């Protein structure tokens, strides 16, 4: 639907359509510089810092995935901990057979993605609230099922083998790089998915599902794709957690199958800004700051995080990034389209937001 509009606009040769008002090449260059600097961190900061950053990168990965689900596809899943936990087990199981846990990360990613197919089949008919609780029940069932298998630790979990005799500093650096690679790939995947046809399809569904369906959009297929990608991303993050903690503990309270993982990803996304790629990044930063300052007060950081998320959901729906965007009108990851009014030039001063086509804001 939007594609045809786009084409007609282009054929008239009067109105220019670009991805962003600004030149994105600089943003892209900036992103590469940031990633390179982050990659050099093990050489320049203490290992304590990288250890904290590994947690941050895990949260960033899962928050980006949850954002893709809830922010772009309207799928509020409360069961992402199922894929997160499965990812951890998909690293553990090959490691028990001698494969390096780092090499198992792709297995965890693909494995969690494949596991998403049957689970999607079970919940695909449900919408919003019922989808949310049904995914939660599914996650619980997956956790209970895994806990029945005694050879992978049953209900108590297992230490992760495969790192015996490895220099702890080197291991810490490798873990950090693995977490960084997973997080960067996750964000890149979301970015390119949304720039692709799928992004348009999801926007069409979000704006009017019935209209999209009658225009020939394969709504179910688009949602399935998002669900599978989000599961794969959460699986990869779970795999990183297993490597980081050097063990896999199941259990729905405190373990890899804990609903708190979904709470963390949801809160980070909502605080940062649901439905923007920048949101989860900003939200993860807020999450990590809160977690680090309040970590000596046990559960308080989750209480405060939850209250902040509720407040933001009610009073600043576009999150912190929405506030930034309102003020400065910037998008680091442009996935929508910008419609130039005739004669408009790049880098014109002032806020010309009225001219924004805002296909995917």
């Amino acid at each position, binding site marked *: 639907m939007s594609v045809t509009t786009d084409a007609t606009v282009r054929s008239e040769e009067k109105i220019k359509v670009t991805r962003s008002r600004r030149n994105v090449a600089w943003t892209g260059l900036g992103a590469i510089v940031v990633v390179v600097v982050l990659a050099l961190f093990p050489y320049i900061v203490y290992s304590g810092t990288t250890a904290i950053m590994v947690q941050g990168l895990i949260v960033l990965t899962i928050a980006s995935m949850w954002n893709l689900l809830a922010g772009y596809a309207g799928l*509020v899943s409360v069961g992402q901990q199922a894929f997160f936990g499965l990812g951890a087990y998909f690293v553990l199981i090959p490691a028990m057979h001698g494969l390096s846990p780092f090499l198992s990360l792709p297995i965890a990613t693909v494995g969690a993605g494949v596991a998403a197919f049957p689970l999607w089949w079970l919940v695909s008919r449900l919408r919003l609230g019922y989808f949310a609780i049904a995914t939660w029940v599914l996650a619980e069932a997956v956790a209970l099922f895994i806990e029945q298998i005694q050879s992978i630790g049953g209900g108590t979990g297992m230490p992760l083998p495969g790192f015996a005799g490895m220099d702890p500093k080197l291991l810490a650096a490798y873990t950090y790089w693995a977490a960084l690679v997973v997080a960067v790939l996750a964000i890149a995947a979301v970015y390119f998915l949304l720039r692709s046809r799928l992004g348009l399809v999801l926007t069409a569904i979000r704006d009017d599902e019935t209209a999209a369906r009658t225009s020939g959009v394969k709504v179910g297929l688009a949602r399935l794709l998002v669900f599978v990608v989000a599961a794969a991303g959460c699986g990869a993050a779970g795999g990183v957690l297993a490597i980081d903690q050097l063990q896999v503990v199941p259990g729905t309270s405190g373990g890899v199958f804990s609903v708190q993982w979904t709470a963390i990803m949801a809160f980070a996304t909502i605080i940062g800004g649901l439905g923007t790629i920048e949101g989860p990044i900003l939200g993860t930063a807020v999450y990590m700051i809160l977690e680090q300052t309040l970590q000596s007060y046990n559960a308080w950081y989750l209480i405060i995080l939850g209250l902040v998320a509720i407040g933001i959901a009610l009073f600043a729906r576009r999150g912190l990034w929405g506030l930034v965007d309102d003020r400065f009108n910037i998008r680091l990851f442009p996935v929508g389209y910008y419609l130039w009014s005739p004669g408009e030039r790049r880098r014109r001063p002032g806020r010309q937001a009225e001219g924004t086509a805002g296909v995917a804001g």
Partner: protein
Amino acid sequence: MGWVNAIIQGILTGGLYALFACGLSLMFGVMKLVNLAHGDLATVAAYIGIGVIAVIHIPFLWSVPIVVAIMAALGYVLQRSLFQSAINRGELTTLIVTFGLSIVIENALLQFFTANSRGIGTGSSLISSSFSIGAGLQIAWLDVVIFALAVVVLLSLQYFLSSSKYGRLIRAVADDREAAQLAGADYRHVFGIAAALAFCTVALAGIAYGMTTVVSPTTGTDTILLFAFAAVVIGGLGSLWGTLVGGIVLGVAQQIGAQINISYELLAGYIVFLAVLVIRPQGLTTRRSQS
């Protein structure tokens, strides 16, 4: 004999699950609100019950109306403030807000009451006693009382909604908010009353659960909410009697699972839930009329 026992126990537990599901079902039916904090609110009710008995030293039975009244007031206030503003902003916000509330309550309980499990001390011999029907079949009075309570609650809800004046008002507002508003009904107040009513059942569910076993901060999500939802789905949406059937099916499935292997108890319940979701998504009791 073990199997017969499992089925009887399952049926009786089903009453408790139906009690869990009442409030969830009612809130969804009237306000279209899927309350992800449902289970945690029931846990809060159980903790209030424990607190009331411990602090003012009253007999257990006297604490029940106090807890129900507190929860009803909480329900009205929550609906008028948090839930209503969330509903106004769409279903996505509702989910985020109630999920946030769920996590906040769970962690607040953890913070203030530690992760230890507690039970509601009833101090009555009736509760711990049981009677025997035939060889080896012991039935606890408490389970029978809770089952009866669930049936009474469902019956009165059914009667209230279908026959009383205020019940009709609630149904009218649920059906068409604007039309009811035009006819002079303040839908916010009606929603508040419906929420208060739902929270009464939530309070009873929490207390009943605290009596049969023990509550801990995570009980709300990993037991009450998920069992309530499973009962609603198995029984079929929008039918109070379906909820009872759903609760019973879930309870029986769990008891049969436990009979095979004690660690299969929860899994068996969820497998039945998933099977219903696949084979009969409209639930066991509702006919396939609307898609």
